[in-house]
């Protein structure tokens, strides 16, 4: 059997756009374009490079997300991933990281894996704990925050560049790894890739397929509760100096600068 690489990806709101919250304190996904998280593109890239190095390997992209999340899977497929799994269920809305890790772990068990590759964190939630939670739930070793990763003889090896030291790590397979944005530039999809992606299979799963009780996930099942959300107050407008057309404003400006000890 080919070596099974599964790369976990997230569909996130474009971080460069204005993001808003919905009534129920979750992110309002309707109001902004979504895309494959940039940090997960590095995970896809590493999974593809590992597959190229291993030779007889197959890469699956796995996501848990709303309908639009298929966009993220399509991009991963266009980059070269072989097939995709999309876990989608209305009951998932509002799930926290504990629920997410339970669902994704279950999906991984169902699809099978030799190595799970994750990004270092999502660009929206930014917790960075999912890889560790997955490893714990699956009962396999984890190597997180790698800037280099390789597989040989049933072992995954990696390098973690910390502030104070560089660690060379290894763990037996199967395992979970996460890779940083320094692991290597993600490739762009090519025309050929986009066209080929159209024919690649996307398997859809819901909570029933995974045997997960809807009440244990979603907003209801979340371990943590967001009580209230308030937009950050706009930065105060500051003092506005109006000129009278005769240059009196200049004096006021000078006084303001002097008062603030700026000059």
């Amino acid at each position, binding site marked *: 059997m080919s070596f099974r690489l599964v790369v976990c990806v997230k569909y996130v709101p*474009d*971080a*460069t*756009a204005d993001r808003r919250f919905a009534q129920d304190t979750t992110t309002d996904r309707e109001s902004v*374009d979504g*895309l*494959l998280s*940039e940090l997960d593109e590095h995970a896809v890239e590493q999974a593809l490079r590992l597959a190229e190095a291993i030779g007889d390997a197959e890469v699956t992209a796995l996501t848990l997300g709303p309908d639009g999340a298929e966009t993220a899977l399509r*991009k991963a497929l*266009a980059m070269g991933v072989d097939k995709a799994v999309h876990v989608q269920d209305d009951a998932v809305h509002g799930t926290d990281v504990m629920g997410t890790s339970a669902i994704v772990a279950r999906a991984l068990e169902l699809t099978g894996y030799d190595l799970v590759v994750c990004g270092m964190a999502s660009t929206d939630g930014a917790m960075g704990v999912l890889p560790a939670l997955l490893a714990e739930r699956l009962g396999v070793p984890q190597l997180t925050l790698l800037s280099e990763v390789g597989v040989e003889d049933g072992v995954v090896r990696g390098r973690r560049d910390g502030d104070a030291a560089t660690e060379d790590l290894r763990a037996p397979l199967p395992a979970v790894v996460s890779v940083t944005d320094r692991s290597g*530039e993600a*490739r*762009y*999809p*090519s*025309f*050929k*890739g*986009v*066209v080929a992606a159209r024919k690649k299979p996307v398997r859809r799963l819901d909570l029933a397929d995974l045997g997960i009780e809807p009440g244990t996930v979603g907003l209801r099942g979340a371990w943590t509760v967001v009580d209230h959300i308030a937009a950050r107050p706009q930065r105060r407008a500051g003092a506005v100096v109006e*000129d009278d*057309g*005769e*240059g009196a404003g200049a004096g006021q400006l000078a006084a303001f600068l002097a008062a603030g000890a700026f000059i």
Partner: protein
Amino acid sequence: MPVTATLDARPSAPKGLLAQLASIVGGYHVLSDPDLTAGHEVDWTGRFTGPTPVVVRPRNPHEVAAVLRACAQYRVPVIPQGGNTGLVGGGVPRQGEAVLSTTRLTDLEPVDRLSGQVTVGAGATLAAVQRHVREAGYDIAVDLAARDSATIGGMVATNAGGLRVLRWGPMRSQVVGVEAVLADGRVMNRLSGLPKDSSGYDLTQLLVGSEGTLAVITRVRLRLIPLFTDRVTVLLALQDTATALRVLALVRGSVPSLDSAEITYADGVALVHKHLRLPSPFRTPTPYPVHLLLECAAQRDPADDLIEALERSPDLLDSAIATDEPSRRALWAHREGHTDAVNAAGVPLKLDVAVPLEELAAFEQEVRGLTVRHAPGARLVLFGHLAEGNYHVNILDAGDRDEELSEAVLRAVARRGGTISAEHGIGVAKARWLSLTRAAVDLDLAAVTKRAWDPEALLNPGVLFSADPA
């Protein structure tokens, strides 16, 4: 009477004029202190500079008219100046002219949704107008990197081009009306914006590209385009310029949403990668000779149209495609980084030329040859707007061969039926070369036109017309 002698003899304006200007716009907007005028006396490139006795900043068309009447009365020539991002030295003083800064003519009228037009003050920046019309679901077709400073009036005066001319035309195609003040203070108003009006000479269009030599533009009425929601950007790796043209023809004929077609070459791309520390967008170890960036914009994802058009083209060595905003911006950096990367590598000789498309591939070879012949050791960086046959010719390290090389390149352009300025204007920088591409009859008519509008030659002397033609 005490005499003050300064080493740097600055021009001074007649006393009476300063007082009169102050009574029109308020003393606060009449600048004569050298510290305050300094920013108006040098252009964006730093190559063109000259002293001015006074910078005056009128707030509305009436004040513009009164200012021009006052200057005419004292026979002081006037340089109209917008955002001062022009690249041919046309908007900075040369020898003691007054500067009329339009930067306070910033009123934005509401978007007219019925006609899809808007009237704006000539001093409004492109970025301000973009924000204004986008709130109403519209966009302005011309976009350029200097958007935060370049003014609508300056863009009309230079007939600015930019990245989307292929689909929408240059500034000329966006202008449906203008209001302008003549050198004697009379106001010409053509702001109705009627799409159809065949009643004689089109004076509005005459002002497009007039570079401040005929009148001061005070308000502009613009045609707007829809604000597109979906874009796809692709970077294609190709063998040579001829192939790029073949690919362009293929897409142009079948993908109406095509907005941009920008060509770059391996040496320029390498410079950009080094300057911005960008990785190559392609995974091959050896760089490709030509990159062609295409962008389509529509209300529904245009990616499939573009892919369908190109899917079977044998010309693509490789391709990179981006639809989401961050990836699109990352792809654009490989093209837009050129200007900065070149500037960072030295002080370049810059030419902005265009030739007919069927001449482009041969012209490219000719320019490369000319550079080697006239300035061995110089570095040529070519890039540009492919669909208009518009190359930005940048030459680094040409040393004292600058003039010689300029002349050789511009003559080559002229021989091939091209233009010595595709989108930056003539200004003072190119005035002496104009006769290369304009016949005597054209130049005569231009001179007569200038005299008809500005008989005292008070507006932007030295621009467009050269005392010393090549």
